[in-house]
């Protein structure tokens, strides 16, 4: 849909050959823009496009008239590959979707297959999953806050700080499943391995260290006059638009809509813990950033409670290795750090591989708000807004 839009622009441009032709820029973009305007391609190789996003921006001086996000540079055909793999072989593929929150991707896929199979999951496994998912949320939001500092021109300081703490969480993951980024940890009916012996103590240490550090980020960023100048009232998304345009996760909650699939769907055991949905007030970049910060605090609360009440018992239900689920389809959704991550899984009942696996990526839907949010702003705001949507391209391009 996005590619079509830019094609239309080019066709329009070719139809009007006599208009003002900019002398700078490459020949790929012929004339077709009004006098005094220019088209600037930000990305796909650019310091603050969070990977491989290309923004085709129509500029009038510094002012952004329109912006067209162009995606697909990281497309690996995930959904098609999944059709040719065993059910269990798809789990490592999901790791490569949103590479900042692989646990959540594992979870949504595993949950879909479990719903097809109708497996009962051991209680300990549910607890371990919640601990992992919430630690993952903290790690992902830490990265988001750090990158956001970079987008606003903070010379890497915020990123170095947040990555210092994210590292501790990755160490925890490493001790659990041996990997730091692509975990391949969740299994149908539970998790791959039990927690290591000293996990509880280590996790408590990390959380105890994290809490004052989050206050430190708040002192460092949320109380910084320039940070506030750059994020307050920028890229304001009102709640109606947020819902109508399919925003989810921190972007939706930043606009003040109090919804979270962890509560509305109450999957796994989130209803057993005492925590709140975090919402922002104004729907601007700062609100979205504040949601990241406060969600980390809530996640710490959840993990602490889960660690305290972690029951003993089996961590994996008995599920055959080579699955052949009954025919049927299932739509599974969870709250990934970026929003509502959903998978539509169809099984034909005859094969050991999924018939169809469709992913609804929260980052993709949130990014599609960008042309709406970045109207009539300056280039610097455009970067700030893009960062506040927290796109991850492993998931958007799939």
């Amino acid at each position, binding site marked *: 849909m996005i590619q079509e839009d830019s094609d239309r622009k080019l066709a329009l441009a070719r139809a009007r050959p006599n208009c003002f032709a900019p002398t700078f820029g490459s020949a790929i973009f012929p004339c077709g823009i009004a006098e005094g305007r220019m088209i600037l391609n930000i990305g796909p190789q650019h310091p603050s496009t969070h990977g491989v996003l290309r923004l085709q921006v129509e500029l009038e001086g*510094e002012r952004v008239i329109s912006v067209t996000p162009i995606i697909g540079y990281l497309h690996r055909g995930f959904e098609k590959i999944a059709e040719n793999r065993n059910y269990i072989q798809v789990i490592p593929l999901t790791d490569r979707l949103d590479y900042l929150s692989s646990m959540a991707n594992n979870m949504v896929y595993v949950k879909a297959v479990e719903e097809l199979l109708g497996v009962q999951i051991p209680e300990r496994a549910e607890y371990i999953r919640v601990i992992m998912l919430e630690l993952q949320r903290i790690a992902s939001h830490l990265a988001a806050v750090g990158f956001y500092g970079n987008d606003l021109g903070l010379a890497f300081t915020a990123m170095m700080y947040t990555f210092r703490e994210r590292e501790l969480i990755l160490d925890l993951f490493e001790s659990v499943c041996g990997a730091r980024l692509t975990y391949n940890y969740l299994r149908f009916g539970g998790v791959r391995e039990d927690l290591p012996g000293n996990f509880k103590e280590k996790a408590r240490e990390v959380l105890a260290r994290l809490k004052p550090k989050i206050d430190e980020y708040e002192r460092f960023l949320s109380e910084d006059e320039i940070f506030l100048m750059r994020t307050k009232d920028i890229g304001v998304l009102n709640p109606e638009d947020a819902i109508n345009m399919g925003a989810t996760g921190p972007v939706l909650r930043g606009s003040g809509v109090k919804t979270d699939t962890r509560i509305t769907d109450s999957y796994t055991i989130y209803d057993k813990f005492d925590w709140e949905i975090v919402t922002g007030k104004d729907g601007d970049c700062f609100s979205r950033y504040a949601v990241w910060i406060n969600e980390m605090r809530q996640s710490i609360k959840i993990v602490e409670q889960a660690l305290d009440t972690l029951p003993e018992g089996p961590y994996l239900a008995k599920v055959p290795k080579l699955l052949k689920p009954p025919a049927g389809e299932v739509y599974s959704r969870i709250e990934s750090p970026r929003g509502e991550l959903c998978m539509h899984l169809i099984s034909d009942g005859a094969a050991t591989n999924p018939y169809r696996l469709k992913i609804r990526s929260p980052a993709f839907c949130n990014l599609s708000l960008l042309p709406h949010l970045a109207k009539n702003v300056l280039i610097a705001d455009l970067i700030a807004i893009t960062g506040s949507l927290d796109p991850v391209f492993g998931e958007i391009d799939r």
Partner: protein
Amino acid sequence: MMENPLVKGIVGAAVLAALISAALLFLIWLERKFIGRLQHRYGPNRAGKFGILQMVVDGIKLLTKEDIIPEKADRAVFTAAPILAFAIAFLPFAAIPFSESLVVSNINIGILYILAVSSLAVVPTIMAGWSPNNKYNLLGGMRAAAMMISYEVPAALAIIGVVMLAGSLNMVEIVKAQEKIWFFIPQIIGFSVFVVAAFVETARLPFDLSEAESELVQGWTTEYSGMKFAMLLFAEYIHSILASLLIVILFLGGWHGPVLPPAVWLLLKTFAVMLLLMWVRATVPRVRINQLLNIGWKILIPAALLNIALTGYARLLLG
């Protein structure tokens, strides 16, 4: 022999150029190390003890890099811009007094001369922004021009207060007048205005809008590579040194200080101000261009004018 102005000029230029280049290498190393520490990392630590040779290694690297001139660039202007920028950056140092006698050219209108030649720096910036036919360069160049032009006004106005107190435009006289009290105390408004304006003129974070890595890739130096890029980078650094020197000379008592020789005091204070510049760089995000211009025109210029009025009134009262 040293009385001959030509000989004095040539010797002074050679010594200054050598000293500034050496200071440059040291300061870039210091900045990388200092910011590394602020950011919870080591900074360069491979080339030489504490990575002290890092800048030498980097210099060799930059010298041997391919020197790319974009196909559609205006070659003459593209090549001239870094040379001009580098040369112009050295000019103001001729009138900078490192102690009462250590000054290459002790002209009577020293501060005017410095303001005049340092405002020339906008010319190579616009050249570098326009000549490579790159949109990022162009945007960066326009931003740089807007910044430099808007912030020269408050800087100059802030200096007027100092000149009124010292009663002279001569740099040596200005420092001599601070023997009893450093000017940043009676000129606290002017000092604040000048520090902010000087920060902007050095185009460092939070005011590095002309480079703005997260927005404009590398801003007005995007298309430059190899030694041409190094010259632009060094020119920016020399601007930072100059800004720190000016803050020290105009407001922080210049070479005045106990025990140590005057030139040492001046350099120590300058390094302290440089460290402040580096500290700020690692601490705050970048402002937006319209916010930056608002600060300049709506806050700094009125504040500087108020400062002039207050200084004049105080002088009238105190005779």
